[in-house]
């Protein structure tokens, strides 16, 4: 027997959420789209005019935009797979029976990097990677390695950003994967262990199907996070040296907040949003099919 729920009840329950979403999410987004169709520079506010898709044309033909996209893509293709491999590895280690209190302690430790504010991570990194006083070079010195110019060298600065991103977000992947592994029915896993001692076979045929939903969620979240990575890089390198770590979010901030070109920055941000949504849809299509 089904009970018909009145429309007013549905509206009462959903209304506040929809209203809040519209207020803090949809309205600013629409405003951003509208502004992206205008020449709107804060320092020339009286010269505001509708320019159609001109801002989009400027962005899409600007080599600086594509260079930033390239840097962001390289960061994504190096950083996210590394986080997934390390995260799954840590989760598999912690999933082993008999770890007891050690597992609880490790879980707690894994939360710390994630709980640290992005900007603080960048500031810490700036100090730790200091060529003269940084702890990283101190440790390298113990091993007889000469001080490395981390922040002042384009390649090293890029590596440092990847290192910190992996440090901060591998625990997140590990915890999601650990949760996914907990959903594997123990009797199936035990039966599989009786059948074979090969961990790869168990992972491939028993555990992996349960990991896929978590992996898709991780991919979506980490893709969005990587594309909009800003705070840590801004406080650590500010996009430098030169343009070495000028990722797309740093470029948008520079365009909007330093050159005050809100129209152009809005167009860059909308393009980034479209790309993020496209990638999220692609992940769901590609990977979710496997578990259906």
């Amino acid at each position, binding site marked *: 027997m089904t009970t018909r729920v009145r429309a007013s009840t549905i509206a009462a329950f959903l209304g506040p959420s929809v209203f809040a979403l519209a207020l803090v999410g949809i309205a600013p987004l629409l405003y951003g789209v509208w502004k992206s169709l205008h020449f709107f520079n*804060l*320092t020339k*506010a*009286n010269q505001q005019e509708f320019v159609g898709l001109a801002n989009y044309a400027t962005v899409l033909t600007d080599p600086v935009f594509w260079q930033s996209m390239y840097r962001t893509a390289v960061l994504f293709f190096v950083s996210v797979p590394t986080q997934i491999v390390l995260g799954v590895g840590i989760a598999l280690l912690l999933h082993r029976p008999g770890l007891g209190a050690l597992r609880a302690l490790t879980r707690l430790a894994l939360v710390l990097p994630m709980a640290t504010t992005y900007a603080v991570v960048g500031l810490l990194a700036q100090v730790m990677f200091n060529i003269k006083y940084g702890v990283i070079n101190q440790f390298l010195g113990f091993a007889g390695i000469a001080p490395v110019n981390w922040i*002042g060298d384009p390649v090293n600065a890029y590596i440092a950003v990847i290192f910190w991103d992996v440090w901060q977000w591998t625990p997140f992947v590990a915890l999601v994967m650990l949760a996914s592994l907990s959903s594997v029915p123990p009797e199936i896993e035990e039966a599989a262990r009786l059948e074979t001692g090969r961990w790869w076979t168990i992972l491939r045929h028993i555990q992996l199907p349960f990991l896929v939903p978590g992996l898709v969620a991780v991919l979506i979240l980490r893709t969005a996070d990587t594309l909009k990575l800003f705070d840590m890089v801004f406080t650590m390198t*500010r996009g430098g*040296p*030169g343009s070495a770590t000028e990722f797309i979010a740093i470029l948008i901030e520079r365009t909007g907040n330093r050159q*005050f070109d809100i129209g152009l920055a809005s167009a860059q941000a909308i393009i980034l949003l479209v790309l993020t949504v496209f990638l999220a849809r692609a992940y769901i299509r590609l990977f979710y099919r496997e578990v259906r």
Partner: protein
Amino acid sequence: MKLRNCVSAFAFMALGLAAGSQAASAWSLEEAAKPYAGTTVDVVFLDRPGYNAAKEMLPEFESKTGIKVNITTLPYENALGEQVRDFVAQGDLDAALIDLVWIGNFAENGWIVPADTFTKDPKLADPDLDMNDFFPLVLNAFGGWNGTIYGLPFDNYSGLLFYNKCMLKDAGFDGPPETWADLKDKYGPALTKDGKFAFALQSKRNETQSADSFARMLWPFGGSFLTKDFKSNLNSPESQAGLNFRQDLMKYMPPGIVSYDHAEAVNALAQGDVAMITEWSAFYSTLTNKDTSKIGDCLAIAPEPKGPAGRKPALGGFSLAVATQADDNEKAAAWLMIQWLTSKANAQTYLEKGGVPARQSVYQNADNAKRFTYIPALVESWQDGVPEFRPRFAEWPTITEIVQEWGSKMMLGEVSVEEGAKTIGAKMEEVLQKAGYYDGKKPLAQ
């Protein structure tokens, strides 16, 4: 008859003068501020010594006037953006803190009020204001735009050569280099050894790259950003000589100099890792503070070295102006605060609390030159500065981003000096073209 007319005219003048002088002697801050008691003045400050000095002084102003000063302290990097957004949104700020490169932007947008609006008002103008007492270069560069004075110089800098005289003495030098060529060719090789470096030129990719690094090497070599008709001058032989000099000088600087901001350069000198830096006068108090500096009595200060075109030291600093968006009471209260903070009478206090006033009179006190060892170098630098050290027009925020990007790339060797200068020039001209400088829509003011 004639005589009678003359006498009456004279008597009338004398009466006028007496009345004027009575008005002058009658003027007091307390009386002037009475109608504005209870008004709040919102202003942005930075976390730098001059602002901390002002914060210590302002309670006296508040108790004398009943005007409340509400200060928002921001990092330099955010100060422009926050103020621009506030002015566009018609926000709360009643006074504008203006870096000299923001003045064109603020004035052209009508966000600040010309100072003569208040100096002409006998109720608000302190008879002892004495605008002529400000260093003319500083007043015009920091507070003036296109012939109009808007702001009064508040936090005032000139580039100075801070050096470790003990390190120089150990290397066989009696004094600092007089020219940039000497710094590179004589002092550089002698002082770069055992993990120490002769010089650090802060060059981080922000305003530091444009102002402290790029522009600093243009002017002493006879270069500049723009020609008289506002075309790029960066590929002129003089500009190229300066920028190539910077590349050559890098071998006597610590590695990673492109990541050095003010803090890193000052710290390198304070810890004895480099022998010389060219820094703003405002960092004097940091370098003399025993809690933040190990250099102690080895610290010495000189004007920046000369290039083939003269000294042309870095020029920077901030003025305070009244914001147009403030209501009439707030405008008057903001003016009284600005006038009081930058007054001749308060210059000594400001100096002693760590600020750098722009009042000529305070530097005429011989005792001050002995106590604050940067003063002779500072006064000399303000005789030979260039107001357009960085162009002060409204397009500078866009152009500085271009300079920061390509100036850093030059230093890193990612592009040649010539190629980098060509790119900056082309992009800079594109910005100026769009702004209307080439078709006569805007006056060629910088």
